[in-house]
């Protein structure tokens, strides 16, 4: 987080990529994109391109990791070697290990873990292209993949970052803002429950700015939440259509 003399926001409050302070990057969400996973989702968030897949609830493998009183959620956040500027070794970095943990802890509050003892759900996230905010986009996609797998959820989890750029708190940092800005605050949120399930921060913020950042990030989350629901509906409407057709065929 260096403060270099590049202007990231112009006099009219417009950011390098033409967005206003509280504007999201373009988003695209798709559910049910992989045939082998029990549930899957694809997200494009800015130039981020991320796939998430969910397997389960199923028997834990290896078995000794199963818990007698709850379901186990496992999460792997992983970046493709070609997803970033300099080729990344496919072996998990310390950053990827940490993000896998915080993403898991961002998703767990949405699950009824105690209802499915001795089982496991595995969530695999592959970042195909990274553009700032991969952890947030990963959570948004992973929640959809879990829902698509039919795992009961308290709410969808949706995530978005806020940050401070040129002394201003703005929504949804892109790569350059992330690198040159003064702070980055990723937030994961369950809107219907008003519950924050991930919160991190890098940089320096006054208490007020921090508060402001959390709020603007939640407002971004709420917008993406609508797209999540739409994406789920779209898939299941399509599926429903097919099922109706199949039923018709059966009836014929």
């Amino acid at each position, binding site marked *: 987080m260096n403060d270099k003399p590049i202007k990231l926001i112009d006099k009219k409050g417009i950011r390098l990529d033409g967005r206003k302070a509280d504007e999201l990057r373009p988003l695209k969400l798709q559910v049910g994109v*992989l*045939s*082998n*996973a029990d549930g*899957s989702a694809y997200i494009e968030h800015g*130039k981020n*391109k991320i*796939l*998430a*897949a969910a*397997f389960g609830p199923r028997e834990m493998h290896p078995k000794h990791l199963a818990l007698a009183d709850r379901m186990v959620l496992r999460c*792997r956040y*992983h970046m*493709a*070697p*070609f*997803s*970033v*500027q*300099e*080729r990344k070794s*496919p*072996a998990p970095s310390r950053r990827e290990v940490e993000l896998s943990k915080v993403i898991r802890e961002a998703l767990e509050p949405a699950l009824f873990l105690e209802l499915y003892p001795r089982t496991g759900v*595995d969530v*695999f*996230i*592959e970042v*195909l*292209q*990274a*553009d700032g905010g991969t952890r947030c986009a990963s959570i948004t996609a992973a929640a959809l993949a879990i829902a698509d797998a039919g795992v009961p959820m308290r709410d969808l989890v949706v995530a978005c970052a806020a940050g401070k750029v040129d002394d201003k708190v703005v929504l949804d940092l892109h790569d350059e803002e992330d690198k040159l800005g003064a702070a980055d605050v990723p937030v994961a949120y369950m809107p219907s429950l008003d519950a924050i399930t991930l919160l991190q921060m890098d940089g320096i913020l006054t208490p007020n700015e921090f508060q402001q950042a959390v709020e603007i990030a939640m407002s971004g989350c709420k917008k993406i939440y609508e797209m999540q629901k739409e994406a789920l509906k779209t898939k299941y409407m399509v599926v429903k259509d097919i099922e109706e057709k199949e039923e018709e065929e059966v009836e014929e």
Partner: protein
Amino acid sequence: MSSLITRVRLKQISQHIENGKRLDERGLHDYRPIKIEQGIIEKAEGSARIYMGKTEVLVGVKVETGEPFPDTPNEGVQTVNAELVPLASPDFEPGPPDENSIELARIVDRGLRESHAIDTGKLCVEAGKKVFVVFVDVYVLNHDGNLIDASALAALAALMNTKLPNYEYKNGELKIKQGFTQLPMKSHPITVTIVKINNQLVIDPQLEEEKVMDSRISIAVNEQGNICAVQKGGSSYFTPQQILEASKLAQAKAAELRKKFNW
């Protein structure tokens, strides 16, 4: 491992093929529908995503500078890696590459290397010191069989889509300039995998077919119809006659694919 139902199903598949029929009505020597999208990872120097039926593979190409091998000081370096990431199949587990991903990477690598697909002689910046290294990363996203052919095709498509930055090299310093040139290529090998199921030769097996196959042979064929890499796999054998048939089949199907993609 496999339940009774699965085993009954696999037996049916195998019997069907004995009678010249496929699961999905294809002929024994037909590929599933193939779709290739190039350039989908903008941050990579090259990329391609292939859909071969439900099998889906993404290949990204990164180009960096590095040292040449001591015995080829004037040549760039080609390096192929394959990841069977766990979202592609319940059978894939996270962890370091296992023998299957290593074999896949090495088959793709040999097809390109032995046919001299990349013109590595044009990737030298300073002999013995600095050359371009071409990283070809094969990323399997959904596994429904025939990963070898799908990965080899996607790798070729990604390389054909790869751009090299223009540069200036002075006093040991490489300076990137505006603009790009295409990665120089000398050949476009196509790999065709033939599997033996109930003594029938079949191409482009789906996953369920691979589970009942006896053995497979993958043959890379170049523009001249010459053979530039071969790999037999699986726990059974081929007769010499079957090898001959497989090699003819590979040439015919490679030519067909070459025509289809205009490569």
